[in-house]
C-alpha cells in the first residue's frame, strides 16, 4: 500500500514535466513583457532592457527554461518577478484562503446535492424529481460573477448579515474566518452542486435497479436503511469521482469568485500573475496546481478502496 502511494506520487513527475514544458513555452510565446509592466507604460526602452537583464529575461529561451527547470529539482521554483517573494511562499500564502473556500464550498454543495440527488432518484419521473433537477440546473445557469454579486447585494448590502467581500484568516477566529467565506462558498457550491446532484441521481438510479437492493427489500429493511446503507454506498464511486474533480477545480482556482469576493486565493494569484506576465509565478503556480491535482486524485483513488472493497483488489 505504501509503495503504491509512493508510485502514484511519483507519477506526478511526468505530469509535471508535461505541464512545465507547456506552461513555459505557452507563457513565453504570449505577448506581454513583465519588465514593461513593472515599469509602467511610459518607461524608457533602456530601463526596460536593463530590468529584463536583471530579471534574466534576455537569455535565450532554452537557457531560461533549463535554469528554471533545474531549479525545480532542488525544490526551487524561483522568485516572483512582481511580488518580491519566492513562488512557493506566494503559493502557500494564497493556498489557505483557497483551501478554506474550497472545503466550505464542497461541504455546501455536498450537503445540498446528495440529498437532492437521492430524493430525485427515489422519486424518479415525479414532479419532485423534476423540481430538484431544474433547481440543480439553476446552479450552472448563472455565471458566478452574477450570482456572487446578487448574493452580496442581498446578504451584505441589503440585509447586512454578512460582509460583502474580503478575507480573514482562521487565526482571526472561526466566525471571522467563516463569515467572509459563506457567500463565495455558496456561489461556488451551487455550480458544483448541480453536477454532483445529477451524478448522484443517475448513479443511484443504476444502483436501485440492482438485484441486491431487491435482496435488501426481501430482508424486510426500511426504505431509508436500504437507500442509505445499501444503495448509497454502492453509488458513491462515481459521486466521489466528480466530487474529487470538483474539488480539484476549486483548488486550481475559483478565479471569478475569488475576484468578486476579493479573496486572496490561488485564483487571484494566477490571474494577477497572468495579467502581470509574472512568468516565474505563473509557471510555478500552474506546476503546483498540477501537483495538487495529482494529489487529490490519489486521495480520491484511495477513497475508492475504502468505499468499495472490490476496488482494492482490481487495481491494475
Amino acid at each position, binding site marked *: 500500500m505504501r509503495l503504491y502511494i509512493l508510485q502514484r506520487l511519483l507519477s506526478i513527475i511526468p505530469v509535471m514535466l508535461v505541464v512545465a514544458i507547456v506552461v513555459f513555452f505557452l507563457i513565453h510565446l504570449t505577448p506581454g513583457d513583465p519588465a514593461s509592466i513593472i515599469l509602467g507604460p511610459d518607461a524608457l526602452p533602456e530601463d526596460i532592457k536593463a530590468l529584463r537583464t536583471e530579471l534574466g529575461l534576455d537569455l535565450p529561451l532554452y537557457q531560461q527554461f533549463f535554469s528554471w527547470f533545474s531549479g525545480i529539482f532542488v525544490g526551487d521554483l524561483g522568485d516572483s518577478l512582481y511580488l518580491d517573494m519566492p513562488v512557493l511562499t506566494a503559493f502557500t500564502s494564497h493556498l489557505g484562503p483557497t483551501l478554506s473556500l474550497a472545503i466550505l464550498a464542497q461541504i455546501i454543495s455536498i450537503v445540498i446535492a446528495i440529498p437532492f440527488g437521492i430524493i430525485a432518484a427515489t422519486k424518479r419521473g415525479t414532479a419532485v424529481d423534476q423540481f430538484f433537477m431544474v433547481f440543480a440546473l439553476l446552479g450552472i445557469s448563472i455565471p458566478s460573477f452574477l450570482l456572487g454579486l446578487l448574493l452580496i447585494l442581498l446578504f451584505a448590502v441589503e440585509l447586512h448579515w454578512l460582509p460583502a467581500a474580503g478575507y480573514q484568516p482562521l487565526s482571526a477566529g472561526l466566525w471571522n474566518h467563516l463569515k467572509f467565506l459563506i457567500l463565495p462558498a455558496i456561489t461556488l457550491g451551487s455550480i458544483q452542486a448541480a453536477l454532483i446532484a445529477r451524478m448522484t441521481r443517475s448513479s443511484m438510479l443504476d444502483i436501485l435497479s440492482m*438485484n441486491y437492493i431487491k*435482496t*435488501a427489500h*426481501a*430482508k*424486510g*429493511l426500511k*426504505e431509508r436503511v436500504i437507500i442509505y446503507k445499501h444503495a448509497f454506498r*454502492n453509488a458513491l464511486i462515481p459521486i466521489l469521482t466528480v466530487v474529487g474533480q470538483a474539488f480539484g477545480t476549486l483548488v486550481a482556482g475559483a478565479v471569478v469568485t475569488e475576484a468578486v469576493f476579493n479573496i486572496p486565493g490561488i485564483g487571484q494569484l494566477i490571474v494577477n500573475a497572468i495579467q502581470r506576465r509574472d512568468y516565474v509565478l505563473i509557471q510555478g503556480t500552474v506546476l503546483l496546481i498540477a501537483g495538487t491535482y495529482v494529489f487529490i486524485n490519489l486521495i480520491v483513488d484511495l477513497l475508492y478502496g475504502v468505499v*468499495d472493497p472490490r476496488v482494492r483488489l482490481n487495481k491494475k
Partner: protein
Amino acid sequence: MSSQPLLEVNHLKTTFATEEGPVTAVDDVTFGVNKGETIGIVGESGCGKSVTSESIMRLLDEKTTKYEGEVLFEGKNLLQLSKADMRDIRGNKISMVFQDPMTSLNPVQTIGDQIAEVIVIHQKVSKGEAFKKAEEMLRLTGIPAPEKRINEYPHEISGGMRQRVLIAMALACRPKVLIADEPTTALDVTIQAQILDLIDELKSELEMGVIMITHDLGVVAEVCQRVVVMYLGQVIEEGEVGTLFSRPLHPYTRGLLKSIPQLDGDRTEKLHVIEGVVPPLTAVPTGCRFAPRCAFADDHCTSKAPVLEEIGDGQKVRCWKADELLKKEGHEHNAATI
C-alpha cells in the same frame, strides 16, 4: 390434505405498466403451501415464476406494478398489508433466495454484516449476538471456516458459497416459508446436491413450507412433494409429484416431461420438442393460451379460456380436453414412463 395451507395464493394477477401498455405477467395463479411441504414451480423460461414469487413478497416496483387477487398468510392478505407490517414479514416469516447469487449480495458489505442485519432487525438482538448467529447459520450451510468467511466480501468467495450465503440469510430468522428461485442453476451437480440436502434438512427441522422454482425436473422429482406447472403466466396443472410425473394431463406438461433427456434413454433418438414458440405477453391468445401449440386443440380451445379444475388425487388442470385425455390414455401412460 391438511386443513389450512400455510401460505395460500388465490387468483393472483400481476400487471406491469409498460410503454406498450399494461402487461399481465401473472394471471390467475392459485396454489398453496403446507407446513413441511416443498412445492415446485416449473415452466418455460419467462412464464412468470419469478414474478409470482416476487409478488408474494411484494418486491416489485410499486409504481409500475398492480397486484390483484390475494396472498393469504396466517390469515392476512399480504397484498393489503401496510408497508410496515409487510416489512415484519419479509425476511422474518417469509424469506427468499434469489435467482442470481452473483448479483444478489451487496458488494460493499461483508457477508457477516449482511446476514447479521436481518437478524438484528427481526429478532431485536445485539449486533454481537447477531454475528454469532450468522456464523452459526453459515456453518449450517456447510461453509468451511465460517468464522473467517464472515469477514469476507462477496467477491472474495465462490459462486457456490454465495448461493449458500443467500440461503443462510434467508434462513437466519427461521422463516415459516422459504421461496427459493432457481437456487442451484449455476452450480454443478455435486454442490447442487449439497444445497438441496441442506434445504431439505432445515425444512424438516423448522417445519417450513418451501416454494422451489426450477427448470430442472430432476430436482423437482427429488425434493418436491407437489408441483405447479406454469405456462404464460398461468398455472396450467398442479398435483402430487408422483401423480404428475406418472400421469401428466395437460399437453404442455406432457411435452415438458417428454423433453427431458433420460439418463438411460436412447441417445440416437431425437429429443422430444414442443412445437411453436411462446407468444409475447402483449399478445396472449384468447381462449386457451397453449392452444396455438397444442396438438389436441380445437375451435373450442382457441375461443374459450379453460379454468383450473380439480380432477382428483389433488391434481388440478387447466384444459378442456383433460377428461378426454384422462380416459383415453390413463393406463397406457403408466406403462410407458416407468
